């Protein structure tokens, strides 16, 4: 059987989650490997959530927020951009494949972008294979 990765998504309520809904409403097809946690704003995402997700066995983590400047809380994603950038650098220096973590700005009207990103990211994670470095073995 081919490798079916588990991908954790964390999406902001106002843009990316709504964009994901739009992808559904317009019946776009994308791989089913992504499971999305809804938070109110991408700025809610604590870096430890991401470390934890990899420990829980996520093969990839995809974060979605509003485009910079369009945040429903004005500036939340501008803080998130910095904080998530640092998170990415930390993962990278610890030896995790940088391609396993991705941040995308997807607005409520970008259902197609959501589907494209998920498709592309899933393919990328498949090519990276299972994530074993952080995963806590039972």
């Amino acid at each position, binding site marked *: 059987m081919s490798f079916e990765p588990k991908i954790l998504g964390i999406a902001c309520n106002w843009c990316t989650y709504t964009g994901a809904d739009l992808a559904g409403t317009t019946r776009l097809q994308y791989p089913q490997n992504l499971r999305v946690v809804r938070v109110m704003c991408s700025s809610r995402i604590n*870096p*430890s959530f991401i*470390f*934890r997700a990899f*420990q829980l066995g996520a093969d990839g983590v995809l974060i979605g927020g509003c485009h*910079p*400047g369009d945040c429903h809380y004005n*500036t939340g994603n*501008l*803080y998130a*951009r*910095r*904080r*998530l*950038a*640092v*998170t*990415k*650098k*930390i*993962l*990278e*220096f*610890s*030896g*995790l*494949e*940088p391609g396993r973590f*991705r*941040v995308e*700005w997807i607005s409520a009207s970008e259902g197609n972008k959501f589907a494209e990103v998920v498709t592309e990211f899933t393919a990328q994670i498949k090519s990276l294979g299972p994530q074993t*470095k*952080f995963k*806590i073995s039972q």
Partner: protein
Amino acid sequence: MTISFKQIEEKLKTEAKRLLESGQASVVLAYGKGYDEKHPMPYVARNPSDVANIVFNEYCNYNMARYLVRYPAGTKIAVAVKAADSRAVIQLIQEEKVKREDLVLLGIPVYGMKNPKTQEIIDGKTTGGLYNPVLYDILLGDEVHGQAIQSPYDVLAAYELMDKEARFAFWKKEFDKCIRCYACRKACPMCYCDPCFIDQNKPKWGDKSPQSHGNLMYHLTRFHHLAGRCIDCGECSRACPVDIPLYLFHKKVAKECEEMFGQAAGMSIEDKPALVNFRVDDSDKILE
């Protein structure tokens, strides 16, 4: 030019005495004798008579800024600061943990400080590449000039070149050694949370016993908490009983932060800590 540690010690004593006598400071944070010359101790002088106990030598690595947050607001504190230590003070001022006007900074321009465990000279490794304090009120000696400037990030080169498998193996080995004594956060001037996130029960971020996954969670999160704040004094690594080179990871994060946000920690009291700040024109490239 060579550094006369004795001369610095004398000046430290003189200034400490003057400040305590005049009431300009009610405590002086400096160094005192330990069980041998290689192991001086952090020392707090409260009375002019205490000043005789003050010492300074090449093993006085402690970052005395660590102790500033222990005193009630408004306490007038004089503190001996080397280059990295002064950056810690600046960072604490940025974070509004201490007020500039409550402090007298006794700046120590110095090089050739040594790690008592290894006898290794720490210049360029854990001094942020600086010899002179960034901020001071009184300078105990002449500014150091002409000493080779070393980039604080040079020591990273070998680790950056490692492929990700080797780097993961390296850090896994290091983090697996951790016995969770928390000496690193005790020694760190910027770790003033009480309780620390890892001590929380709700939520439980990671296992509290020394297991690999809890260790990983503790260290990676701590690196994030210190991102844009770590001033490269190296105290975490010297405090570590199992010799985890934490300073390397902190340095890497500091380097990335400096490149991404154009600001190094503790260089100006006008700055805002980089991770609770943003610029509208921060590039999305930083996420790539």
